[in-house]
């Protein structure tokens, strides 16, 4: 099959409130993901990164309303009926959440959790499903899989349980993995192991991955391209290996300056004033303008477009003034 694996165009999500006025959470997200590609979505609270994943899987809250289109392998996800939607969620996309303990039934054994979808949806015989589950547990680096299948979630560590969740996703052999802060609750050495496993399996199986995180450096290490989100919009999209030196949006630069470095102490961190906002809290102009050192009155009037700049896409009306593009040797992404 040709064409992109996933295509979002103008994806917008509003949520109804008690007073009747809808609140915008996502505002016009355009993204494409090629087969086998890893794309990072990076942002702070309210940026809309988790809502994007929920919209892709059609798991939005009941009060939310999505518009725009989501295409998976060319098919319109919004138009899928019951059986098509089940097939899409069963074998098309797989979800890895931040907190595996909140998403794995604590009263059932690991084995029962892992084989449920295979046995129920795909009518795989129980014995064969258990054998497959054991094989996948070994693939994600779990020793003695046969014993683990008989254990309950509370008997194993958070890092191992996250591997179990990844294993459960792999068993369905999806073409796309959506990983929502999959390592945020884990210790840093365990995080390193888990992202290495995700990365290896993605490459081996040619799966696409949308990797959501608040940690820009982690996204850069795991993904080929990274989209930085703010207030429900993409503000910068760039290849991971050039983002550090070419970050053009003031918010991206601010995120990079906010993070302390491990190899030196900054006299002062270049903190961004104010706090992150959601799309519905922002005015009609640039949502970042109230926190931006480069903002001019015009920035608050009109929303900037996502435009090409220095090999990436940037949503800033003043980008050419504040950061002149260097002569670019390679073609733009």
């Amino acid at each position, binding site marked *: 099959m040709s064409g992109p694996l996933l295509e979002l165009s103008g994806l917008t999500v509003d949520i109804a409130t008690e007073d009747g006025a809808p609140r915008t959470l996502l505002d016009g997200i355009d993204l494409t993901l090629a087969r086998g590609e890893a794309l990072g979505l990076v942002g*702070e*609270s309210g940026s809309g990164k988790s809502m994007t994943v929920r919209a892709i899987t059609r798991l939005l809250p009941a009060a939310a309303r999505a518009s725009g289109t989501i295409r998976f392998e060319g098919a319109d996800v919004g138009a899928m009926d019951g059986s098509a939607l089940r097939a899409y969620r069963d074998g098309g996309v797989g979800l890895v959440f931040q907190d595996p303990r909140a998403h794995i039934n604590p009263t059932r054994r690991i084995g029962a959790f892992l084989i449920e979808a295979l046995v129920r949806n795909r009518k795989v015989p129980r014995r064969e499903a258990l054998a497959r589950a054991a094989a996948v547990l070994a693939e994600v680096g779990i020793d003695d899989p046969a014993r683990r299948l008989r254990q309950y979630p509370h008997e194993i560590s*958070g890092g191992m349980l996250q591997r179990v969740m990844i294993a459960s996703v792999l068993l369905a052999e999806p073409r796309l993995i959506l990983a929502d802060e999959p390592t945020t609750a884990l*210790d*840093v*050495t*365990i*995080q*390193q*192991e888990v*992202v*290495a*496993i995700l*990365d*290896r399996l993605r490459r081996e199986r040619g799966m696409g991955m949308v990797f959501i995180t*608040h*940690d*820009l*450096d*982690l996204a*850069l*290490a*795991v993904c080929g391209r990274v989209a930085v989100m703010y207030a429900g919009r993409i503000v910068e999209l760039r290849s991971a290996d050039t983002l*550090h030196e070419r970050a053009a949006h003031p918010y991206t630069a*601010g*995120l990079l*300056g*906010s*993070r*302390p*470095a*491990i*190899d*030196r*102490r*900054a006299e*002062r*961190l*270049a*903190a*961004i*004033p104010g*706090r*992150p906002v959601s799309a519905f809290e922002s005015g009609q102009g640039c949502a970042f303008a109230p926190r931006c050192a480069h903002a001019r009155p015009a920035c608050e009037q009109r929303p900037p477009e996502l435009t090409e700049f220095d090999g990436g896409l940037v949503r800033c009306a003043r980008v050419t003034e504040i950061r002149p593009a260097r002569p670019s040797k390679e073609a733009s992404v």
Partner: protein
Amino acid sequence: MSTAGTDTAQAVEVRELTKVFKGARGVRHQAVADVSFDVPVGGSLGIVGESGSGKTTIARMLVGLERPTSGRIAVLGRDRSRPARRGVERGARARELQIVFQDPYTSLDPRQSARAAVAEVLRHHGGLTAEQRAKRLDELVDQVGLTERQALARPRDLSGGQRQRVAIARALAARPRVLVLDEAVSALDVSIQAQILNLLADIRAETGLTYLLISHDLAVVRQLCDTVLVLRGGRVVEQGDCARVLDAPAEEYTRALREAVPVPGWTVGV
């Protein structure tokens, strides 16, 4: 502010500190084993470790929420290895050392505004007149960067960063000499974390407060601390000057921790 110790006194002195928890059926778990360290007056020590390293248990023993199984803790030269016997002593200990917890959502009273929370501590400690208290309250609200409107709001109407500013103001209200920061910036958004780290650096520069930062984040420790102690499984792996330990770790575990942190150029490897 009066000083309890002498010029050479350590702000915090911990010797052979051990904590054993007894579980069901007599199972013993040694959470902290034989840990010793000093923090000089005005110094800043980072205690780093992963889950189960014992770092939070150490913080809880320092504030008196857990009782050491053995070993000694002294703050400003005064022993606090045993629970305070009387309210007077508890009050004195609180004026020596305060703590800011990780989660500003659960460590504040949901019914209290920032001003009310800080005012309560001021009434309890310090013996100020009503007029002095009001002045000090304004100073504290200003020092942690809360606006007047935020200071009157309840916790649910504040963001995570604003709540953490309230928690810091409340801790400072007792005029402590030592501030324990237990993962105090870990739950914050990156841009807010930078603001709070700058705020904590400013407060230390202005007041000469001693910090003891409990964290899993090596970069945060580097930014805020002079010295660092690496814990694993309740035991000290390595301790010393922050730059030395992080730039040239002597221990394999410290090196592994450092190399697991994603930095520019870091690649995913097994």
